[in-house]
Structures are given as structure tokens and as C-alpha cells.
């Protein structure tokens, strides 16, 4: 554990503005589609409301169903501890922590999926099945991107890759890094179940993925889940930002500002996509993810063939 | 003189080979094979080295076993088992004659590759011919009895070869050989006898119950 003031602040910042990022996304969408829409901070109100509610549990469910939401938030928080949020150093850093980053998110997903199957409802089973399908394809693109970063920076830890000297590598490998940034953003949309993979604002269960999976959660558990997915969006957003904008050179305050701004920008970007694109048919999603991964693949091959 | 008479006898052997090959009547077959046995008995007498006790005994033994006992025994089997008198070839007489001719050619072909020391003597080719024609009879005749005849001829062929070594191979061995052949044919005869009783037809071609289905 190496906690510097800047990293601590950045960490707290991310935890706090996570709901806002999601809110900005919906806000942007409603603005662009010319609707009134909910305020950007709506999610905070929802969470507060849910926390004060009671809960209803299905008779078929077991402790897994109750554990999953907490575990999901915990795993996402831990994922955040691995990112150099302040552009310098993460809380926990070790070579190959990128693997931990991806896999700890996987653990959260695993438990959430089990919770869905725990209810014994066909809807949630359907959602769970789709979730794992897309997630397992997302992993490929994610690791291709990590691989590219490893080759470019010759570093094994996220802090090492995205930390101080990252700016120099940009000069040499701009095209590859741009490509993986785009790829990562596309994967983010899938991982956080956004358009074009999933539509959080739909009301037809049969077309849902994430939403239908958590259909049975209520009260504080639902709050945890909503917050968890918002946090996931923020954390992955932070990853994209760190890849796209090397902040090693900036002073701490500046890098924090960039982070905050970047996260909001991500939210805007998500909103724009949701406003402009339609949700893909399920069979097409695999192609979409393959496209995102192939971006990362191209960049990896590019850097493999041009040794640093 | 001995050499030329040896050649003469050997030619006679070849003639008997073809005679057996060509005859259609079982009794005639057996008569010919008995005749061949008798010739074999004479062979050691005319090989080089003159008459020794050993050679004479051998000649007598051969004549007794090959020319008298075995043919007589076969006749007994035929009579007792009421075997029909035809030879019943699977291949026609003409065909088996051709086989015989081929065997003759092959025998001399092989004999020609012999070392020069042994060339000229008819012993090897005649022995080979007899062996091969014995084989031909074994493979082309339906009746079990005829196959016994074929086996005897094959045995004779080998024996011709042995006789030329009479002085090398001690008497005990020849005795053993004769005895074995005798017992062998004897047992075969017994079996033939039983076969006929079991399958009321002596044709060995019917013995096809044991097979890979």
C-alpha cells in the first residue's frame, strides 16, 4: 500500500463523482434528443431514496443473492485501487496487476450472475446468460490493450504503464495508443451495458441485459448495484482517460482536474453515443465486440512488429 | 556304371511322379507310389561307395516300409472305409500335368544356381521335382487318401536327397526318419478312416467347419 495525498484525493474523487458520470450521460442524451430528462444528479437522489427503503427477497433466494451486491461494489472499489488515478501511482501496485484489475471485476460479475440464477426466474437467467456472454468477449479486447501497453512501455504494472513516463511513449506510438483508446471506450460501453450493447432506459425485459439481471434486487441492495455499475463506468472511464491523456508531466492538482474533466467527458461521450446510435440486435453484439477487440489487436501487432 | 544307373533310376522316379499325377484310379495311384518306394529302395545300392552293411539294411528297410507296408495299409483303409475309387481332382488332370511340368522347370532352374561341384548330378532336381509334385497332389486332390499319397511322394522327394548322403548320416537317423514317416502315415490313415465314418464322404474338401466366419 502506497497512499499519497494526491492518489487518495483522486480515489475519493472517483468514488464520489461516479454517479454523476452516469447522470451526465443520461443528461446529455436527453438534451441531444430534445427531451426534458432527469437532472444530472438524479442518481444520487435515487440511491438516497433506495437506502431508506426496506427490501423484499424472493423465497427461492439464498445468501448468495444478498452477498452479491456488496461483493460487486467491493470488487469495483478494489479495481479502482489498482489504477494510478492521479496519473502517478496507484494504492496497490505489482507487476501484472492489470490481470488482477480485469479478474477482480470478473469476480463481482460472477457473484452477480449467481445472484440472478438464485432467483430461479427465466428473465434473470436470460440476463445473466447474456451478461457472461458479452463479458467473456470483452476480456479479449481488454487484454489485447493491456498487451499493447506492456509492449509500448515495457512495464508490467498499471502504475508503471500509465504513470510518469507515459507521455514519452505517446510520441513514438501515437497511432497504436489512439486505437486502443477507441477500443477501450467501445469495450467500456459493453462492459457497463450501455448502447449499443444494452439500453438501460428500455422497459421491455426481453431486450435487457444488465437491468433484467438485477430485476429482483430491491432497497439497499439495488442501491449497491446501481452505485456499483456507476462506479464501474467511472473506473473504466478513468482507465480510458489515463490511456488517452498522459498526465505524468502535470502537477497533482492539474492531473486531478484532468481526471475529473475527463470522466465527465466520458459521460458526455456515452450520452452522445446513446443519442445517436440504436441498440444492436443481440447476434450483432459479438461482431461489435470483435471489432473493438480487433482495433486493439491491430495496435498490438503494430507495436510487436515495430520494436521499441 | 553306377552313375548311369543312378541317373536311370532317378528318371524312373520322375516318371512315377507324373504317373501318379496322371492316373485317375485310386488303386493305381497307390500302386505307382509303391513302385516309387521300391525304386527308392534301390537307390542307395547304386550310389558311390559300394555295398556296405549299412546301405543294404537301409535299402531293405526302405523297400519294406515304403513299397509294402504303407501302400498295403492305404489299401486297407480304402477297403475298410469303402472309399469310392476315383481320385476326384479339384484341378483337371491336364491342369495338374501342367503344374507338374512347371515344377520340373522350376526345379531345374533352382538346380542351375547350384555350386559347380554339385552340377550334373540329377539328384537335386529330381528330389525337388518330386517334392513339388507331391505338393501339387496335396493341393489339387479332394480326397484325404490322395493327399496322403501326395504327402508320401513329398516325403520320397526329401528321402531321395537323404539317400545320397547315406554315408554321412548314421543309420540310427534313417531308422528314425523311416519310423516317423511310417507312424505319421499310419495315424493319417486312422484319421482318414475316422473321417470317412464321421462324414460318410472322404472328400477333404468338406472339412471346412472350422473357419473365420
Amino acid at each position, binding site marked *: 500500500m502506497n497512499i499519497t495525498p494526491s492518489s487518495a484525493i483522486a480515489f475519493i474523487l472517483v468514488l464520489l463523482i461516479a454517479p454523476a458520470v452516469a447522470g451526465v450521460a443520461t443528461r446529455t442524451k436527453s438534451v441531444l434528443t430534445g427531451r426534458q430528462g432527469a437532472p444530472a444528479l438524479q442518481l444520487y437522489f435515487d440511491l438516497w431514496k433506495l437506502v431508506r427503503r426496506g427490501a423484499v427477497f424472493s423465497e427461492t433466494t439464498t445468501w448468495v443473492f444478498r452477498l452479491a451486491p456488496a461483493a460487486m461494489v467491493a470488487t469495483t472499489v478494489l479495481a479502482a485501487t*489498482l489504477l494510478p488515478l492521479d496519473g502517478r501511482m496507484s494504492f496497490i501496485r505489482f507487476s501484472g496487476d492489470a490481470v488482477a484489475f480485469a479478474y477482480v471485476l470478473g469476480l463481482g460479475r460472477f457473484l452477480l450472475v449467481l445472484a440472478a440464477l438464485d432467483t430461479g426466474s*427465466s428473465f434473470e437467467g436470460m440476463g445473466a446468460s447474456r451478461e457472461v456472454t458479452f463479458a467473456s468477449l470483452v476480456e479479449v479486447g481488454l487484454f489485447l490493450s493491456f498487451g499493447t501497453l506492456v509492449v509500448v512501455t515495457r512495464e508490467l504494472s498499471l502504475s508503471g504503464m500509465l504513470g510518469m513516463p507515459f507521455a514519452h511513449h505517446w510520441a513514438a506510438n501515437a497511432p497504436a495508443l489512439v486505437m486502443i483508446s477507441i477500443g477501450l471506450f467501445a469495450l467500456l460501453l459493453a462492459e457497463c451495458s450501455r448502447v449499443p450493447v444494452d439500453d438501460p432506459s428500455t422497459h421491455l425485459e426481453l431486450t435487457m441485459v444488465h437491468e433484467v439481471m438485477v430485476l429482483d434486487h430491491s432497497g439497499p441492495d439495488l442501491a449497491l448495484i446501481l452505485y456499483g455499475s456507476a462506479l464501474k463506468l467511472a473506473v473504466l472511464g478513468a482507465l480510458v482517460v489515463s490511456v488517452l491523456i498522459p498526465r505524468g508531466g502535470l502537477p497533482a492538482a492539474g492531473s486531478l482536474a484532468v481526471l475529473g474533466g475527463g470522466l465527465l467527458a466520458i459521460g458526455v461521450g456515452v450520452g452522445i453515443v446513446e443519442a445517436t446510435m440504436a441498440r444492436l440486435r443481440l447476434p450483432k453484439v459479438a461482431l461489435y465486440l470483435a471489432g473493438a477487440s480487433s482495433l486493439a489487436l491491430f495496435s498490438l501487432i503494430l507495436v510487436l512488429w515495430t520494436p521499441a | 556304371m553306377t552313375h548311369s544307373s543312378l541317373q536311370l533310376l532317378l528318371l524312373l522316379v520322375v516318371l512315377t511322379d507324373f504317373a501318379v499325377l496322371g492316373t485317375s484310379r485310386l488303386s493305381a495311384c497307390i500302386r505307382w507310389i509303391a513302385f516309387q518306394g521300391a525304386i527308392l529302395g534301390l537307390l542307395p545300392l547304386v550310389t558311390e561307395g559300394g555295398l556296405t552293411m549299412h546301405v543294404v539294411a537301409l535299402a531293405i528297410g526302405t523297400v519294406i516300409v515304403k513299397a509294402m507296408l504303407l501302400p498295403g495299409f492305404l489299401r486297407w483303409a480304402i477297403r475298410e472305409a469303402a472309399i469310392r475309387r476315383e481320385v476326384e481332382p479339384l484341378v483337371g488332370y491336364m491342369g495338374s500335368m501342367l503344374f507338374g511340368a512347371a515344377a520340373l522347370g522350376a526345379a531345374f532352374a533352382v538346380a542351375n544356381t547350384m555350386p559347380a561341384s554339385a552340377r550334373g548330378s540329377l539328384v537335386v532336381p529330381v528330389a525337388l521335382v518330386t517334392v513339388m509334385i507331391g505338393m501339387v497332389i496335396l493341393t489339387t486332390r479332394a480326397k484325404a487318401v490322395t493327399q496322403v499319397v501326395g504327402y508320401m511322394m513329398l516325403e520320397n522327394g526329401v528321402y531321395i536327397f537323404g539317400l545320397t548322403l547315406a554315408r554321412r548320416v548314421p543309420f540310427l537317423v534313417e531308422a528314425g526318419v523311416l519310423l516317423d514317416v511310417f507312424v505319421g502315415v499310419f495315424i493319417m490313415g486312422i484319421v482318414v478312416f475316422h473321417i470317412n465314418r464321421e462324414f460318410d464322404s472322404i472328400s477333404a474338401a468338406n*472339412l471346412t467347419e472350422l473357419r473365420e466366419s
Partner: protein
Amino acid sequence: MILLFIGLGMVVSAAVAALVVRGDALRDRVFATLVVAGAGLASVPAFRVLGGAGHLAARWPSGLPGGDLSIGIDPLSAVFLLAALAVGAANAVYGAADMRAGATARISRQANAAYAVLVVTLALVVTAQSVLLFLSAWEMMAISSFLLIMTDHHQAHVRRAGFIYLVATHTGTLLLFVMFAVWSRGAADWSFASLAAARPTLMWGGGPLFLLALAGFGVKAGFVPLHFWLPPAHAASPSHVSALMSGIVIKTGIYGILRVVMLAGAPPAWWAWIVLLLGALSAVLGVLWALAQHDIKRLLAYHSVENIGIILIGIGLGALGTAYHHPMLAILGYGAAVLHTVNHALFKSLLFMSAGAVYRMTSTCNMEELGGIAPRMPITFAVFLVGSIAIIGVPPLNGFVSEWLVFQGLFRAGYSSSALRIALLGAPILALVGGLALACFAKAAGVVFLGRPRSARPLAAREVGPAFLFPQLALAAICVAIGLMPAAILRPFLFVGATIAGEPQAQLATAWADVAPDAQHIAVFATALLLVAAVIWAGRRLVLHRRSVRSDATWSSGYGATTSRMQYTASSFAAPLLSVFGPLTGVQEHRGATVFHSVPRDLILDRVVAPLWAYVRRSALRLRPIQDGRLHFYLVYVVATVLAFLTYLVVTQ
């Protein structure tokens, strides 16, 4: 060393006890005690070796060709020996109870005896130091496991599985004959030491040797495409046997490959690449095929194929390390392979045991008939969950540690400056495997244990007894321990890796210096994960404490009359993923108005091996007419032979 013999002796006596002791309860107790105690004793020297006590050895002069039979423990043997003994002991306890619950006294006596023999032969295989002893132990291992597979031989599918297994393993053994024959050409005798000395005499840089080793041991290890015997065998045998086979027996194939690498020296680069490719192939296909299964034991069996693939990737990395003179990579690769071998042995046995417990209670392995077990068998569910989290390789359990080590190798290969860097492409593949494994175990745990019962069978389920649970809890504890404090166990594994790679102590030291801090941080990370989760959980409890908590039927979008048949089934859960990979998965889907069901096929067994065997059989039957019973033809054969030989005589003049 003597302790090893005493311990194994005790296990042997356990076999005898299983046969002779009267009184079921007493017999089982004696059997289990002897096996556990023997395993404990025998493991002492292994620990000493890993502690750096140097190489222990003993010889026995037998008049056989090829010199003495020698036995010894070096670090490589030690690791595998420990794994075999631990898993063997755990399964002995479980198995005795399971057989007693499920089989007649006579069957279970024989099964227990065969099991003890299997444990002993496993120990001999990994400690043998001469060819003949190794091959003997190897084949006796195969035979005893065959006998165990045939336990339920009144079922036709069991006999078929046993036959396939027997032929496959014997073929492998014959390939090993050839391999050792090739190897011993230049050797003084047939002891491993002499084989190692004969290294220079190997033709073509040992290429044929390494290929033969890969093929011969591969049949046992069961990587694609040599895995075809594995799923039927695991589905056919009793649970504890499946556990031991999947945990240890197939790992002896890995041991063999590593042993050959260690003795014959650095393999050629192309071999390393082949191993890497095979590893990736069986990892992906294994997990895909696992996803397609609905028989829980077959599913677990295919996961063994997947994990063997991961282990092979490790071996491939190690071999690449030696081939491209990258000592760090060599140590990491081999170390990762061995560590993952041990980890997989632990959690796969665990999973087979808990699946077996479910089978014992519901007497079905068909997931489509299960569901709703968790409330009825809470502890079994808990350990199964631990096993699942371990096998999908996510923090905070041991599976993550070894997969992380493999990724380390892949990444480090990635930024080296030689052609080696291409190996980095293995990383995304391994990630895909991880994702698919996650999906697969979500399906396994979810469909078997959670939701509502899909048939009447689960209703009868009750929690199993302590003799079933203690072994599982023990293994689960080890999994957690390795996951939470990897630093404690990583060093010996790197030591083994260095031994296999033939790297000097100095390299080991640098590697360890490089890896140790990371291990510490992983420990921190795992602990932090648990802490944060605990805190949030506590907070949630606190909040809910003051709120009204009701329970009601599952919300199904307003439709009231839901039945258990409306649940997502194993088939439907896996359908979207399988549809992505199309024909590769070999499933046949049956869609109907009321039912969706998919039937898995093994592409290799059903499309390659079986047809091949049928072809051989057909062409053999075509020769039958030769033996048609007619004496005249037989005589013609004699004549033909004579003529053929005479021609040979004439032409060779």
C-alpha cells in the same frame, strides 16, 4: 527416504486391510487411517527436499536388462509427490464413505484396495529414477485406475469408457517404449542419470524424442486432441476416483513431459512453440466443450482439459525461455506450470467431491434435473463455490496466483526483443479462457445449486456427513491459504521451475527478488478485497436492520403462475455463447415449442477416433476369407511361401 517406503508400505497395507478386515465400519476406518497416516509419513522427505535437503535416492539391483531399479526424490518429484499424497489421502477418506453409501461391500472392498494401489503407484511414478521402474509404475497406475473406472461395470457406457481409456493409455505407454528406446541408444544403462548423460547422442537435437514424449505423455495428460478418453472415463468412475484421476493421474503426463525436459535438456524452440499452441488450443476448446456439457462430471472433466492447456502454456513459456536464453521466463514458465498443476489438483478434486456429494444425494449428474440444492446442502454448496472461484482464476483464491504467474510469463515474453514477443498473443487467449470459464462455472454452480429444483430428485437432498465434508473443507482451506499468502509458497515453486530449466541458483535468486514483492502485494490486495466486502456487507446489514424485510415470490414481470420448468436451463444458459463459436463446440440443438435442449458431441472421439477404429476393423475383417477352412488353400500358402523364399534365395545370389 526410509520414511517414504514406510509410508507407502502403510498405504499398501491399507489395500490389504480393505480386502481382509471384517466389519464394514471398522474396515473403512482402518483403511482411511492407514492411507492418511501413510501419506503423511511419505510426505516428510518430500518436504525436506523442497526445503533444500538435496536429492534423496535408493537403488535395487534387479537382474533386468538396463541396470538397477533406482528411486529418488528431487524437487520436481517432491512437488508432484506432495500433491499426489495430499489429494490421495483426502479422496481416500471421502471415497471410503462414498463407496460405503453407494456400493455393495464386495465392490467397495475391491475399489478401496485398487485405490490404495493407485496411490502407491502414483508415488512410484513421480519418484522412479530408472526407465523400467518408471514404466512399470506407470502401467500399474493405468491398470489400477482402469479397475477403478470399471467399478460400475454392469452399465454398458462404463465398460465402453473403460475400454477406451485402457486402449488410449496403453497406446501412450507403447509410444513411451519407443521414446525410451530411442533415448537409451547412446546410454550406458536405463537409469535416468545415464539418459541425462546420453543427451549429446540424441539425433536431430532430440527433436524426435521430444515429440514422442509429447505424444506419449500427452495421451495421459489429455490435452486436445488426445483428450478423447478423458470425459467418458471421468463420467463413468466413482466421484473420488474422478477426483484423483483429474487431480493427479492426468498430471503424471505433465510430470513426464517436465521430467523429459529436465533430463534431455533445453528443447528446441519449435517444440516450445508447438507446446504453446497445443496449450492455447486445449485451453479454449476445453472450456468451450465444458460449456456445452450438461453432465456435471463431464463438465468438470472438460475443464481438466482446459487447465491442462493452461499448464501447457506455462511449459511452453518455460521451454521458450530456455530456447531464447531468457532465464527469468524459463523459471517463471515452468514454475507457473507446476504451481497451476498443484492448484488444479486441489480445486478440481474439491469440485469433483462436492459434485459427487450431490450425485450421492440425488443420484443424477444431469444438471437439467438439478437445481435448488443450495438450501438443502449449504456446506457442499459453499465448498463448491470456493472451488469455482478458485478454478476461474479470480482473486482472492489460489487459481488467480498461478494464472497471474502465467500472465507474468506472457507479458515478460512480450517486451523481450526477440521473436519470443509473439508469445504475448497468448495473453488475450488466456483471458478469453478465463471469461468462458467464468461463464461455465456460473452455469454449473447456478444451475446445479441455485434456483428451484428442475425435477423431483433434488427434493430428497440432505447435507452429507462429516466423512464427505472434512476432506473438502481441508482442500478448500489450502486453496484459500495459497490465495491469501502466495509469498509463502511461491519460492519453492520457482525453485522447482529453476531445477527443470536447469538454471543456476543465482538466476533463481534474481527471479525471486523480482517476484517476492509482487506476491506480497497480491496478499495485500486479496486481504483488502475481503475487508472492503466485509465492511460494505456490515453496513448493509446495519441499514437493513432498521428496515422492513419481507420475502415473497420472485418478481416475474407481473406473471403469476411461474413454474420451475420456466427457469433458464443449462442448455439455454450456454446457448448464446456457444452460438458465437458455432460448429467448434460440436453441440446439436433441439428447439421445440415447449423445450430447448442441446446435445454435446466430442469432436475428436465421435468424428475422428471412432471412425478410424471402425475403418481398421473393417479392413481387418476383409482379410477373414484367408482363413476359410479349406485345407487345400492352406497348403497353397505353404507352397507360395516356399516359392517366395526360393525366389529370394535365387535373386540374392
